[in-house]
């Protein structure tokens, strides 16, 4: 194969990426168009009506946008007290030791568990527990879904933050130690400020994961089309309403579900791009 042909071959395969991504956007936009045209974009994302009685179809995405934001935010809060210690354990306290390798294997395996199995575990173990503790009567809801989501994103946040914590230069830390600082003071005064932007960006990427998680949320959130009024009430996320209703939907409802898909796609794309950009910047500095 000569050089020219080789270059052309590589270029043509690389064209596949713009083609696939363009195809995704094109498919979503053309099929969402009907819903946006019928309801108007702004009205669609701010209306909370979701009824498919013939003749009076009303579709609005607000309950699902709220559901997604609530589950994601809660999952993010619940994941911090676990992912940050793991990151410190692997990246600072026990850096390079066997225990750290074991712990990072454990978190890698956690990341590998399929989301439907997380959903089963949440449904058959966590839900009865929440009912037994009298937190909510039906067991499923925003809280249950967020707890399992939090477990699912801990590995992503932890492994990436550990990477940034590892990169904190030793001479900075040694400088602080020589002035008499304890380890916890070094972590608070040196490691966090230096690795801070990297740690922050790894949490943004973890949030990106939680936003689009489908099966777990579908199995645990309770699947009601209202705006959740508390964290123990049931609801639906953007991904779970699609998973629940896409199979039976047609016409305007189909288009509305695609429109929700488009909104979800845009939100995750923006969050991921912000995260990736921040990571790049944190790596350079």
């Amino acid at each position, binding site marked *: 194969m000569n050089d020219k042909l080789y270059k052309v071959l590589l*270029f043509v395969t690389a064209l596949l990426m713009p083609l696939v991504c363009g195809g995704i956007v094109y498919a979503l936009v053309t099929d969402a168009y009907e819903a946006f045209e019928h309801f108007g974009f702004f009205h669609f994302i701010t209306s909370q009506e979701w009824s498919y009685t013939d003749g009076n179809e009303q579709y609005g995405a607000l309950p699902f946008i709220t559901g997604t934001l609530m589950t994601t935010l809660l999952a993010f809060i619940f994941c911090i007290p676990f*992912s940050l210690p793991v990151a410190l354990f692997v990246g600072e306290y026990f850096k390079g030791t066997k225990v750290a390798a074991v712990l990072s294997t454990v978190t890698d395996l956690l990341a590998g568990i399929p989301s*439907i199995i997380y959903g089963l575990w949440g449904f058959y173990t966590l839900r009865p527990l929440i009912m037994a503790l009298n937190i909510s009567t039906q067991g499923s809801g925003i809280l249950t879904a967020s707890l399992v989501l939090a477990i699912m994103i801990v590995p992503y946040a932890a492994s990436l933050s550990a990477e940034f914590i590892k990169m904190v230069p030793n001479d900075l830390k040694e400088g602080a130690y020589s002035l008499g600082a304890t380890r*916890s003071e070094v972590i608070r005064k040196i490691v966090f400020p230096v690795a801070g932007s990297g740690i922050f960006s790894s949490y943004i990427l973890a949030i990106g994961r939680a936003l689009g998680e489908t099966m777990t949320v579908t199995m645990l959130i309770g699947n009601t089309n209202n705006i959740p009024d508390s964290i123990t009430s049931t609801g639906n996320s953007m991904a779970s309403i699609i998973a629940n209703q896409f199979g039976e939907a047609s016409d305007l409802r189909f288009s509305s579900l695609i429109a929700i898909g488009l909104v979800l796609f845009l939100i995750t794309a923006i969050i991921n791009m912000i995260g990736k950009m921040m990571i790049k910047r944190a790596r350079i500095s």
Partner: protein
Amino acid sequence: MATKKIKNRLAKDKAMLWAVCLFSALTAVPLFAILGEVLLRGYDQLSWSFFTEPTPTAYKAMKAIEAGEPIPGGIANGIIGTMIMLGMATIVAVPTGILCGAFLAENPKKRFAQIVSYLTDLLQGTPSVIIGIVTYIWVVVPMKGYSAIAGSVALFVMMLPLIIRSTEETLKILPQSLKEAGLALGGNRARVMMKVQLPAAFGGIFTGVLLAISRVIGETAPLMFTALGCSFIRFAIDKPISAVPLLIWEFFNDPNLQELIWGASLFLLLFVLTLNLIAKYLAKKWNQ
């Protein structure tokens, strides 16, 4: 006074160490809780017939439950469907992913390569349910029906960015001298890539492919709207087909079949975790 302050600081330091250890240990609990539950509830369902027979109908399962017998049948339709769809997706995704990754590694400064790299990140972060509905629009609507082809397209789109990234990253950490030596010996770029760089990067790429497979094998959402599911063993690629995660989802929703959940989950979980461990082991071995 001064010693009291120091004691205070040392105590804080110790408390932090213990807190870090405690919460790190707690993070491992879900893994073992999930493994334990799936193992305990699923191990007695695993038998030869579980892997060779298709899913029973809800009626048959109901009869068996009434008679107090174990539910007959298994998940063979799902295993075969998963193998067919994953096989087709892998066969296409590996060469295209490797070529795409090679393009990114060869032209790190080109504007177009930067766009492709950006789009790879975008695709990797796209929720799987969206890949499912888009594949529905792409494939199911024009073909006027759910099919194994549609399912494999969805899996292909999910695998592609993972393989591109692992190829690119492995090629980039190869020593530059390797490529230069090949070129100095008179090989052209294509030959150096095929005979020197890709073989040297084989370990990393192979690990990446294993991880990509383990990532998509448990995917349910993209298959719900593409492969749909099928209750008997089928090899046709233009008809609806089942997959192991799809079966778990069906069992979850059908009270008569609920007992089968755990066997199927155990099979899927062990498969995924083993693939992960093998990939991790290989990565470590190739890095040395």
